């Protein structure tokens, strides 16, 4: 077809040519960066030597490089915290530094919220807020904090490279050399993702380190971040704080948790042949880890399940590792006290040529999302559709990585026995677009029907709906959508939602394992018995599990001390976990 030029209005083209004739500046970010660096040099004077900043001059540095309204990434991870930078930022004069937009995966320290209370920051985009959840909710409701969204880790990292790119990054590393190269040690965590986004977009990178290698020939054990990405280094007065988030004392695991762990191993892991998996945080999954070398061994499952993991270095996995169950573990972060053990098991953990582990939250989240066949974790609330949330009234907790771990990866194109079997169950008897061959990730919510203080885990309506109203969020903060959950496991039994064909069946399957909660008591008994006949609801006895066997004697370790012993003394638990 020949386009008739006469039909095109000539005006847009003329406008375009005029615009093109006007010179455009293509390096505003670089010149802005140069101005900030010049201001820093001027403010610091002799307190700046190369990239090194005198710790006493840190407030001057921050005031010089920060501008009102800047988007700032303050490294708050699940474990490692840039605490010296956080405390200094929170103590700045809000007359000079204000209106900051904080982007950070974890809101963990009081200082992370002090910046809002003190008028230094006003907007927040984040992933997880564990211990600060109640105060965060308070700040949102009194209007001193405007919440963007509650993201998954991967989602937030993704936005660092699209529309939430940090102008200034404040991060933590173990050590720096004279050129600014960084060694993060085992807790690499978010640092590479944050710095890649910041350093390659004309941003400013400020790092607090525990150690500075002064001698020009001194070398780091390995380089985790090249010095070229780093602008300023400050030696913190104290080593950065690390939270031992994934340490669970086996002494606190209950018989009920042992029973649920038996059901998970026999009813799900063995049933689907789950070899590649991720465990959420908590005593429920710690119980599973401690039953592998005992109950799992007795069932003849060694080598058939649980070979490859995307997992933080859980101390409770030590007995299974020592018994030869585990081929590989890639980790989001490290765990305090596990450093020597990790170093001594390089066949299992991802360690560098220097011998120490390197974690990487972004990579491990990708691994968990695309290459694991099962996620199992706990929650605070489940509704009749299976939607699950940890956000309860007055607490905006966030969900970290759970939504990415707890969903089938739509882009996945490789098969595995567990994934294919779950897919077959989900698609069985369906035709058309719903019948196209495809696997399905196993997503298990493992909860006791009542939490502490008799709060029911099963509810008619999630608090998330009310929180959406209160915080003005686009979406209710649901951690894992009901349509992604494949199994619900309680002390009463196991509900396989993959086999449900109607919303009514799904609701009764959920009620059928909800115990004595109001949701459970309102079940249709006849329908639940029908679901049981079809294997959709299974009781311990249906799985061939004798609940009399569910004692703490089945745990491969019954105390932290047992874990130390199992590790041959390599695991060195933090003091608060040493009870002997």
């Amino acid at each position, binding site marked *: 077809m020949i386009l008739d030029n006469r039909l095109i209005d000539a005006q847009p083209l003329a406008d375009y040519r005029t615009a093109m004739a006007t010179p455009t500046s293509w390096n505003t970010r670089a010149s802005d960066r140069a101005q900030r660096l010049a201001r820093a040099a001027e403010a610091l004077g002799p307190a700046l030597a190369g990239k090194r900043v005198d710790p006493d001059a840190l407030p001057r540095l921050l005031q010089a490089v920060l501008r009102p309204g800047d988007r700032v990434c303050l490294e708050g991870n699940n474990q490692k915290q840039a605490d010296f930078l956080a405390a200094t930022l929170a103590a700045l004069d809000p007359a000079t530094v204000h209106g900051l937009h904080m982007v950070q995966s974890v809101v963990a320290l009081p200082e992370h919220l002090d910046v809002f209370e003190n008028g230094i920051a006003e907007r927040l985009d984040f992933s997880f807020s564990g211990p600060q959840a109640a105060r965060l909710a308070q700040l949102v409701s009194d209007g001193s904090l405007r919440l963007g969204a509650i993201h998954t880790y991967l989602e937030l990292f993704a936005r660092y490279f699209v529309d939430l790119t940090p102008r200034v990054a404040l991060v933590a590393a173990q050590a720096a050399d004279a050129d600014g190269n960084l060694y993060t040690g085992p807790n690499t965590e978010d640092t590479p993702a944050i710095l890649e986004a910041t350093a390659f977009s004309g941003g400013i990178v400020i790092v607090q380190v525990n150690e500075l290698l002064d001698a020009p020939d001194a070398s780091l054990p390995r380089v985790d971040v090249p010095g070229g990405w780093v602008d300023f280094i400050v030696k913190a007065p104290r080593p950065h704080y690390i939270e031992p988030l994934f340490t669970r004392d086996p002494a606190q695991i*209950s*018989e*009920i948790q042992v*029973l649920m762990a038996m059901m998970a191993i026999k009813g799900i892991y063995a049933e689907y042949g789950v070899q590649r998996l991720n465990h959420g945080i908590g005593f429920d999954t710690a119980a599973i880890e401690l039953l592998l070398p005992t109950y799992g061994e007795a069932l003849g499952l060694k080598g058939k399940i649980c070979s490859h993991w995307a997992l933080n270095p859980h101390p409770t996995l030590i007995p299974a590792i020592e018994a030869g169950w585990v081929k590989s573990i890639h980790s989001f972060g490290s765990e305090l006290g596990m450093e020597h053990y990790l170093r001594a098991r390089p066949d299992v953990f991802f360690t560098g040529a220097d011998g120490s582990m390197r974690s990487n939250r972004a990579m491990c989240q990708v691994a968990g999302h695309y290459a694991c066949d099962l996620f199992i974790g706990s929650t605070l609330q489940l509704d009749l559709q299976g939607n699950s949330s940890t956000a309860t009234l007055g607490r905006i907790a966030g969900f970290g990585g759970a939504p990415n771990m707890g969903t089938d990866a739509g882009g996945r194109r490789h098969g595995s026995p567990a994934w294919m079997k779950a897919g077959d169950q989900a698609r069985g008897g369906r035709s058309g677009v719903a019948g196209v061959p495809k696997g399905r990730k196993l997503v298990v919510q493992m909860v*006791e*029907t*009542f939490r*502490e*203080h*008799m709060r029911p885990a099963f509810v008619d309506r999630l608090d998330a709906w009310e929180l959406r109203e209160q915080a003005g969020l686009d979406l209710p903060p649901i951690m894992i959508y009901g349509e992604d959950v494949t199994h619900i496991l309680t*002390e*009463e039994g196991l509900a396989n939602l993959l086999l449900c064909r109607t919303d009514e069946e799904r609701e009764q399957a959920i009620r059928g394992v909800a*115990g*004595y909660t109001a949701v459970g*008591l309102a079940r249709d008994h006849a329908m639940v018995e029908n679901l049981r006949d079809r294997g959709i609801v299974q009781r311990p006895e249906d799985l061939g599990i004798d*609940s*009399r066997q569910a004692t703490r004697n089945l745990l491969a370790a019954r105390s932290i001390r047992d874990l130390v012993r199992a590790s041959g003394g390599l695991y060195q638990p933090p003091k608060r976990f040493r009870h002997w």
Partner: protein
Amino acid sequence: MTGISPELETLEYRWEGQREAGDFPPVLVGVVGSGNLEVLLEPEAGPACTVRIETSARGFGDIWHAVVRDFHRRHDLAGVRISIHDMGATPAVVSLRLDQAAREIAA
């Protein structure tokens, strides 16, 4: 079951059962500790299984009734007096302890 209050709540239930327990030495399982409970089983003349609960958590009578009723449906005991001292145990723990205690007299 919790919401621990200084005043104890007392609940009592009675069902007639078919499985005569006969004479047996008293059975005690569990401990009185937070989130746990103590269950004592003793022989009692007559065709009934009686249950007396003292709990630190008030206001959960409906749930106790359902838990104990289901226990009775499972074991159908007669001639047994059950005394429970509860310190905020969940229904799952209550059921587990009751089953453990019933097993002791069956053994």
